[in-house]
């Protein structure tokens, strides 16, 4: 962490929700994570010495432009990619470990559903993968449909739904088994602002029930709704703190400017770091 010259990564382990659990019990603990792709000479560092903890019951935001390593990080946390160096623990287990699968939920930016099956059939399929069946499965399908407000479309094939509705089904499929830990990779890409607000309201309700959420986004206006934010750029952790603390530390009024501020600091600290801040922001939509 020291290598990243971040102004405040260690300072704030006081997220707003719930009581602070000890670092050892963090649902997600990442230590000096390195991930490279390709052979030695041409290897690209997708993740470079990333260290952080996610606290139980919080919404932890991963913020960064496309290509900053968010998806790679989430894939490693899910156990479907292997770290090159460092170690990653999810729910206390060193990843990759399939035993955590039952307790985690995952939603990607692609809706990842079976288009020719109905909404209810999709939910039933994913529910049964997690061992739900019979009355419990039916109850969870009903609850999930109500939650994502698709009860009336339960019999519609997913192909016939609008993009926003599909995203809602996708979220439903990620939570049908009531996971303790939810990984959301850009869950609000391509959905309208109204639905985005609904999603974030729902995340807050999940937090209240004790569910830990790790969400990546490049909508900086969503950043404010996270309890803590990790700013990621070129595989490095620029900063990690509450949204308010990050704004305060950067002296900026909005997250776009705050991100730029931390990006410039990184360049000053490491002049040979790749890319420039201006182009980075351009990619952030």
């Amino acid at each position, binding site marked *: 962490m020291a290598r990243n010259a971040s102004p405040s990564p260690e300072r704030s382990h006081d997220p707003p929700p719930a009581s602070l659990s000890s670092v050892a019990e963090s649902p997600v603990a990442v230590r000096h994570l390195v991930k490279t792709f390709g052979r030695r000479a041409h290897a690209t560092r997708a993740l470079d010495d990333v260290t952080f903890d996610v606290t139980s019951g919080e919404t932890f935001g991963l913020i960064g432009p496309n290509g900053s390593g968010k998806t790679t990080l989430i894939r490693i946390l*899910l*156990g*479907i*990619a*292997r770290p090159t160096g460092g170690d990653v623990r999810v729910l206390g287990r060193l990843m*990759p470990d*399939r035993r955590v*699968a*039952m307790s*985690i939920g*995952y939603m*990607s930016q*692609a*809706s*990842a*559903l*079976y*288009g*020719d*099956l109905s909404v209810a*059939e999709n939910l039933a*399929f*994913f529910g*049964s*993968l*997690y*061992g739900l*069946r019979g009355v419990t499965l039916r109850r969870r399908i009903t609850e999930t449909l109500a939650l994502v407000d698709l009860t009336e479309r339960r019999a519609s*094939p997913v192909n016939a739904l609008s993009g926003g509705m599909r995203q809602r089904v996708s979220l439903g*499929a990620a939570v049908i088994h009531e996971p303790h830990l939810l990984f959301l990779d850009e869950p609000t890409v391509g959905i309208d602002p109204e639905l985005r607000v609904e999603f974030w309201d729902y995340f807050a309700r999940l937090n209240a029930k004790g569910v830990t959420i790790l969400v990546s986004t490049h909508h900086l206006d969503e950043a404010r709704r996270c309890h803590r934010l990790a700013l990621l750029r070129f595989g490095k952790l620029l900063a990690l703190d509450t949204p308010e603390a990050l704004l305060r530390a950067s002296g900026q009024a909005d997250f776009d400017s705050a991100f730029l501020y931390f990006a410039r600091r990184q360049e000053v600290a490491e002049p040979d770091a790749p890319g420039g801040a201006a182009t980075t922001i351009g990619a952030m939509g």
Partner: protein
Amino acid sequence: MASIRRTLALALRIVRQFARDRRTMALLFLAPLLVMTILNFVLNNSGASVTLAIVPPPGAQGATFASDIQRALDGANGVTTTVISADQVDSTLKSGDADAALVFPDDFFTILATGGQPHIALKLEGSNPPAANQAKQLAAFALAKASASFAPTLPGQTGGGASAAPAVTLDTTYLYGGPQYTQTDALAPMFIGLFSFFFVFLLASVAFLRERGQGTLERLMVSPLSQTELTLGYVLGFTLFATIQSVVILAFVIFVLQVHYAGALWLLFLVTLLLTIGGVNMGIFASAFARNELQVIQFIPLLIVPQVLLGGLFFAVRSLPVVLYQLAYVMPLTWANFALQDVMLKGLGFNDIWPDLVFLVGFAALMVIAAAVSLRQERI
């Protein structure tokens, strides 16, 4: 430890998806029937253009005899007969004016009168096996009719089959398959193998490609579904379709095309099952090397067509040149064809076809491993 419930959930999902895709269902069940109907027509009704040349014994008696034969064949569907002289045989066959020539010896009546066995030569054109077969059957039929009518002196005989006629030997240099079987009979078993393998491979690789493309494979990998359950679920889902397909094809072949069938049904389904397991896993494996549906289609000439050409469907495996012969023996369809033909045509049992089954089990196992390896690379 594989969970049956998860596996069944996956199998059920696959069944649901395909059951909803009407066009794929039509492809799966109607396309084989269409292809077989066309082939049945082409192969067996090519007799519509069969021409049999007759070289009668000399003299007026010979001419009467020839017209007797011609009359006997006139009733047959689209058969043409022509009478030529012995020195015209080669040129007539070469020019394609006749598919076969039935040549009676000059001393035909003399031998018959002395109770001897005249040798009649059947010269087949041969470049068109179905036509040759047809001509052969035609010649035998003609001989039976004509000979019977020619020998009314034998006690209790008023004409009938060849066995009732006076002893006549038909010398054919060209002997191909059992005379009671038509071309479709010989092909039907191979079609059952071909269709179940081909469609299962095609549909499994496309289904799996979609699974990758739409991101659901990632979701499956994140879920507690193990790799074993994933493979089993796919095999189970597709086996259901392959089995229904075999039933449909078999029913069509037996009841509509009226193909001869002798043998144990369960062996047939066992072969289909092994081919399905191999096909599904080959599809999963192949889909790792395809980026879209078009690239899956590109596997067909590479992986399917050689098996169709060399597996015994068009050419007898034993008649292939050495290199191709060896190639044919590493292809699953060849072994499936052997087994299916043995069961359906010869009525052989498990004890006779187990070497074929061993190969198919080996192939299925190899494909399961290949699919597993490709999936493992995906995960990490």
